[in-house]
């Protein structure tokens, strides 16, 4: 128990983003329950490649795909 607590404290100090994730646990749980959920099809959305070419998420077939959201900040 103590070890678990210490590990958590360490995470809170070292990784503020993880700590904020702990705080917004409900938001995270809501996210999991919000459509599209596991088992749903990936919505078809028209996006771009960095050189500006159009790219449709419908092209993401025939292989496993991982999408990770991010930005410069």
């Amino acid at each position, binding site marked *: 128990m103590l070890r678990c607590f210490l590990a958590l404290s360490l995470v*809170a*100090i070292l*990784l*503020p*983003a*993880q*700590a*904020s*994730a702990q*705080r917004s646990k409900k*938001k*995270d749980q809501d*996210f*999991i329950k*919000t459509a*599209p*959920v*596991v*088992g*749903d*099809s*990936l*919505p078809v*959305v*028209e*996006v*771009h*490649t*960095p*050189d*500006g070419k159009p*790219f449709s*998420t*419908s092209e*993401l*077939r*025939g*292989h*496993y*795909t*991982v*999408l*990770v*959201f*991010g*930005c*410069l*900040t």
Partner: protein
Amino acid sequence: LRNVSGLEAVHRDYAPLGVKIYFVYKSLAHPELEGDYIQPFTLEERLAHARQAEQQLGASIPWLVDPMDNRLKHALGDRPNSEYVIDPQGVIVRKRPWSNPETLRSDLEELVGPVAKTTRPEDVDLPVQPPLPAAAEKGVTQRVMRAGMFALRAAPQIDKKGPPFFAKLRAEADLNLIDEGHGRMYLGFHLDPFHGAHWNNLTKPLRFRLEAPPEVKLSQSSWEAPQLSAAKDSDPREFLIEVKQWPADAAVRLVVDYFACTDEVCHTVRQAYTLRRERDKDAGAARSAGFRGLTPQQMFAKLMEGDKNGDGQLVPEELDSIMRPRFTDHDSSQDGVLDREEIQEMARQLARPLQP
């Protein structure tokens, strides 16, 4: 974006097995952090952000870019760093609110199979690049504090033939203004490092006016930035405005005039925005942005302003709504109060530059 090395390690191991990993470039989660990046206004600018992210992070994972209406972010749950695994039929098989390379690796081991040799994140030597520099010195002016404020809708009026938005408006308001129609509004004109311009303080300072219908009541209608003694700088031009009355359906037009300069040339710029008394939930949170110009001593003094009972300590209720969630992180002794030492440490952490 965190854990880039971890994700790159998974990418290197699973790309040969046909797994395609993409980063999705979305609206900024925390504008003004990590290199003074601010929200892009046009798709071209967002594409430039994504290309900068490729360079800066040094990862070989390709990027996709969400259009300016943030449609993919909206379609997939509006989170800053979420992660989805999609099977070859296009069906979502994993979904998590925060990307986690270790968990992703175990997912792929289960779905695709284990790899012969696992690349460890510490073995991934990413050719990272520094963030884009500001065109001139920063920290010349005192920044405006805007804790407890949220982004307002401020639509730039984009003229495709006109100059770029060298300086971009960031509009924020406190909850009194957003909810009740009277309160404080923050207007900050931030130079976009992608356009390489600075302020030339030998020219006329930035000025702007607000054009509002009569039912909107402001203390004044035009403002001008102070004339600075430094010849040039890249600090934002920031204003705190008291709004006495702003009915929910009234739009306010802002017209700004400024000179955006490089060392060779100054551009005379007039640009306009339409402001609405509405939260912009895609604009991100410029968390602690206003603290960067402060020294730890100034930050300490700022925090101690909340010490209502004057006992030299702070309880959560004495912190503002932006600081309050950080309380437990800083209460090292876990006794429910921040003592002098803990407040000093908090001030030191908040005041330090956030750039790597």
